[in-house]
């Protein structure tokens, strides 16, 4: 392995870890703030460090501090397998985290004639990995529920288990149909396949090529992550908090984080498989690299305008109502951020100018394109996470029997049908 390969591997691994872990507080914040805004509330907006609130993200860090510092408390009836009780949340967390690690964040970079994957775990069987590792997570939930010695926890874990079994099948069949379509089990290849177009004008994204498969995939992944409307395994209205009932402090936090990591993973998988991954629509990696100057100019033009709008929006909204007496910290924060944003914009513009003006910097351009793709990926990821969140605050929770009914009676036959049709088409068309 060359040095470049090692550097790229380390960078992509770190990137994956960061994307998975740093996303947790942000997602928590997004969930709360999103819920608040959907419900005509403000959500967390008070916690600050030296007056910097970052729109409330700081609250999440405060939460983390709180959860870490909380007293480790065990219910007295959990006396026998305390170590296991403490251990099992991490099974869920680690499984979700590992499953995330096969997602490609950008197209392969060619450095020194060697094609390198921008993928934390550079494997070519990403889909299978995701399916295999993703299935482990439920073991943690079931063990935790059982070891809680609590009827609600038990019910929660039973529900989680049966739901996992119920939705793993349609999920697998949907993925198989995608595998047939893309003719690969490598995520990267899948993304590459999607960079083309179908019917001449539509981006060849999975959602357009395989709409039914895509919907089944999305629904099944919602179910797999125990997110609303499928959150029956913790259904507060019936079984307190399901498998998490007896969990407190950091043990609870690991379950909690596991859920967000799983959500993040699910989003990443959905993006990668049906929304073109890190690709811009219509524009493949090669196009980006070859027409780099044009894109750079476009970005140079769009970015300042976008930032300007953002600054104005921020200044407007990062303040208390006029009727409320303010201590000025919010205005100060907005001012600081305005300068920071302007500075960052200027730096980006400068870099782009440099890249445009130096035609020899092929490597730099490749890196820039990769960064752009990562940015696109993160942007899509955030969008899809937001979608997850908005769904949660829109739809009511299904009843448990409805969930099972949906899984077995609709999704499974539909996915089989989809597989069948896909196979016929693929074989027929060639």
């Amino acid at each position, binding site marked *: 392995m060359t040095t470049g390969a090692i550097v790229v591997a380390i960078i992509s691994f770190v990137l994956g870890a960061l994307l998975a872990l740093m996303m947790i507080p942000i997602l928590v914040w997004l969930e709360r703030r999103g819920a608040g*805004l*959907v419900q*005509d509330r*403000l959500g967390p907006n008070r916690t600050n460090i030296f007056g910097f609130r970052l729109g409330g993200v700081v609250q999440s860090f405060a939460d983390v501090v709180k959860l870490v510092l909380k007293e480790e408390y065990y219910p007295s009836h959990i006396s026998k397998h305390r170590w296991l009780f403490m251990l099992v949340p991490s099974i869920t967390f680690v499984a979700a985290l590992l499953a995330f690690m096969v997602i490609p964040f950008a197209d392969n970079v060619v450095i020194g004639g060697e094609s390198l994957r921008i993928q934390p775990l550079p494997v070519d069987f990403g889909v299978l990995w995701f399916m295999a590792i993703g299935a482990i997570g439920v073991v943690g939930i079931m063990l935790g529920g059982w070891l809680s010695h609590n009827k609600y926890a038990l019910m929660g874990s039973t529900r989680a288990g049966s739901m996992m079994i119920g939705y793993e099948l349609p999920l697998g069949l949907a993925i198989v149909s995608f595998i047939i379509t893309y003719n690969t089990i490598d995520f990267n290849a899948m993304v590459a396949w999607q960079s083309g177009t179908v019917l001449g004008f539509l981006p060849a994204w999975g959602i357009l090529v395989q709409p039914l498969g895509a919907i089944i995939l999305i629904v099944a992944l919602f179910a797999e992550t125990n997110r609303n409307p499928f959150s029956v395994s913790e259904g507060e209205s019936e079984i307190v908090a399901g498998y998490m009932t007896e969990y407190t402090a950091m043990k609870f936090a690991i379950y909690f984080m596991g859920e967000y990591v799983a959500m993040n993973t699910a989003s990443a998988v959905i993006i990668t498989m049906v929304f073109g991954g890190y690709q811009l629509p219509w524009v493949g990696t090669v196009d980006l690299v070859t027409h780099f100057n044009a894109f750079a100019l476009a970005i140079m033009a769009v970015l300042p305008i976008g930032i300007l709008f953002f600054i104005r929006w921020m200044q*407007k*909204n990062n303040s208390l109502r006029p009727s*409320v007496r303010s201590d000025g910290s919010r205005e100060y924060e907005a001012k600081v951020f305005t300068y920071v944003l302007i500075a960052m914009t200027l730096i980006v513009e400068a870099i782009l100018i440099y890249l445009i003006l130096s035609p020899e910097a092929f490597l730099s351009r490749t890196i820039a394109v990769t960064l752009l793709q990562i940015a696109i990926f993160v942007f899509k990821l955030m969008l899809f996470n937001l979608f997850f969140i*908005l*769904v949660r605050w*829109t739809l009511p929770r299904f009843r448990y029997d409805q969930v099972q009914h949906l899984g077995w009676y609709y999704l499974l036959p539909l996915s089989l049908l989809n597989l069948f049709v896909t196979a016929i088409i693929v074989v027929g068309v060639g």
Partner: protein
Amino acid sequence: MSRKIKVVPRYGSNIKDKLYLPAIYQGMKVTFKHLMANVADSNAIETLEYPEEQPSDITQRYRGLHRLTHREDESIACVACFMCATACPARCIFIEAVEREDGRDEKMPKRFAIDTLECVFCGYCVEACPCDAIRMDTGIFSLIGSSREDFVLEKEQLLAHKGAFGEEKSCARK
């Protein structure tokens, strides 16, 4: 009364309802509408900026902090019958009864304390009181203390609270 009954049509029988997707779309539309509007101008949200803005619309039926009422002659109206303590689902009312010496009644509380940390503000005590001696009409909705003991309101504190809606004296017993 019968005219006020609103018959809600049953959904879910036709294919459109069974598909759920239109309903989901409608739901998402509402969600997005609120989200976008609020993102665009978060100051338009009518949520109270609480510590700076105080609620001004507390109604008479709002169950605020408790108070003990007085009789016409400023003596305590409570006769320590323990009805509130009996009705209390949180068992947060602590009463010690003692002989009343002023001749107005036989019994009065020596100690009457409410542990507001345990209180669930259900208002059962008010309902249970045969003497109209305890009310929750102070309009006080936040109580701040630095120790657990601060939240145990004693008789004197409860008597010192004023009703937020007038009608100071207890009317049940003279």
